[in-house]
């Protein structure tokens, strides 16, 4: 009887055999990240475990070593010191949503978090996971690019490396070091807008995410940064549109005019005319929202 019971359990396994590593400090985690072969980092698990299950059903090999960061307390929490917001890698989306962000452009992070997936997913998924999972459709990358954030990584030697999200995503979201946290400077005069379109009502996979940050003085736009995730490539900036907006003044037609100044390759990689259209109207409405302020 006990043999039958064992067989049933084995049959019901959702994941291939793996070794789970549970470091307790970020340095230990950074060392394991460097040392472990055939490994994946487990943050919230909402991307990784689903993809591992899917690969198993297809009979595909999955990572033998899973490096879980769940017990590394140093990697958890949100804080503000002076003018800098710090979000640790293992901060859950709902924790960021509940954190009292200062008034101003950083409030956009609440809008971003509110629109991510479903409540249990927001309780589990982490900011670090969203940024580093190497899925091209996650939304935080575009937001961090627009907010001019800095991504902090820890090497196995304990040395920290800081790079911009733009560089990180240009490098296809790869790093040999462990992502620990992201920092963002508060900017009193900056304004932000965010748009996210999901695939269908029930399938919460973003088709696009875009975030605009700008400063407007006497209706003139300057220091504009636009982070875009088209779902095909990793998050990127639109330099042509930024240049246009930085020479512009707010007007009711600005959104429409801006559509003539796009780095079209970013928007036209989408497969259908409908998606290309959605991209443009989202961008237009985000610009119009900022132009009204």
């Amino acid at each position: 009887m006990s043999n039958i019971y064992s067989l049933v359990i084995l049959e019901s396994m959702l994941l291939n055999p793996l070794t789970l590593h549970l470091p307790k400090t970020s340095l230990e985690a950074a060392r394991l990240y460097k040392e472990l072969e055939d490994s994946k980092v487990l943050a919230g698990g909402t991307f990784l475990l689903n993809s591992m299950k899917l690969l198993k059903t297809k009979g595909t090999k999955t990572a033998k070593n899973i490096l879980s960061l769940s017990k590394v307390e140093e990697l958890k929490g949100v804080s503000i010191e002076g003018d800098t917001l710090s979000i640790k890698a293992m901060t859950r989306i709902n924790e960021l949503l509940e954190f009292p962000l200062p008034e101003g452009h950083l409030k956009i992070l609440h809008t971003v978090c509110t629109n991510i997936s479903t409540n249990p997913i927001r309780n589990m998924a982490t900011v670090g996971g969203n940024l580093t999972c190497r899925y091209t459709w996650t939304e935080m990358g575009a937001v961090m690019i627009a907010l001019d954030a800095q991504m902090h990584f820890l090497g196995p030697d304990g040395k920290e490396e800081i790079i911009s999200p733009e560089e990180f995503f240009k490098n296809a979201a790869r790093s040999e070091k462990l992502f620990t946290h992201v920092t963002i400077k508060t900017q009193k005069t900056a304004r932000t807008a965010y748009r996210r379109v999901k695939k269908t009502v029930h399938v919460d996979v973003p088709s696009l995410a875009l975030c605009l940050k700008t400063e407007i003085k006497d209706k003139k736009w300057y220091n504009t940064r636009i982070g875009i995730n088209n779902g095909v490539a990793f998050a990127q900036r639109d330099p042509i549109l930024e240049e246009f907006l930085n020479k512009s003044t707010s007007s009711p037609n600005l959104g429409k005019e801006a559509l003539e100044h796009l780095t079209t390759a970013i928007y036209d990689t989408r497969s259908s005319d409908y998606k290309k259209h959605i991209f443009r109207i989202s961008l237009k409405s985000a610009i119009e929202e900022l132009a009204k302020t």
Partner: protein
Amino acid sequence: MDATFTINKKLITVNLKGNETLLEVLRDYLSLTGTKTACQESECGTCTVMINGKANLSCITLAANVQGEEITTIEGLAQGDVLHPVQQAFIEHGSVQCGFCIPGMIMSSVALLEKNPTPTQTEIEYALDGNICRCAGYPKIFEAVHDAGKKLVSMRAQKKHGPNS
């Protein structure tokens, strides 16, 4: 590996393999089959349990990863023969049709009401957005959550000020 959890307020040690999900451990090892298994890919919410008071999906939780945490399943809500106010409200409002989504719905509702016993309709819909009811019985479910919230507020007031308050 031996992993210890607090499941429904009981300390339980289970010998685990690294790849076992919490859902498998609850259902297959501990026979806590009130937690349902359906999509197994974090879409439907039937496997919702509470981990440290928050609604989590047990199908995408590695059991070994949550050792040491406090886990509550649908079996842990009632006190003896007395149902949890949310369970009672679901019965009173006829919120159960086929019933398959209900344990997950109840766990998400309890997690919400623990934090916010007087939620608005929008807050309820937002908190339960990860739980799909294929019978589309949402109106009765939302009614039950509203009502359970009121009962919880009244119970807390009674506990604080005595039964005559």
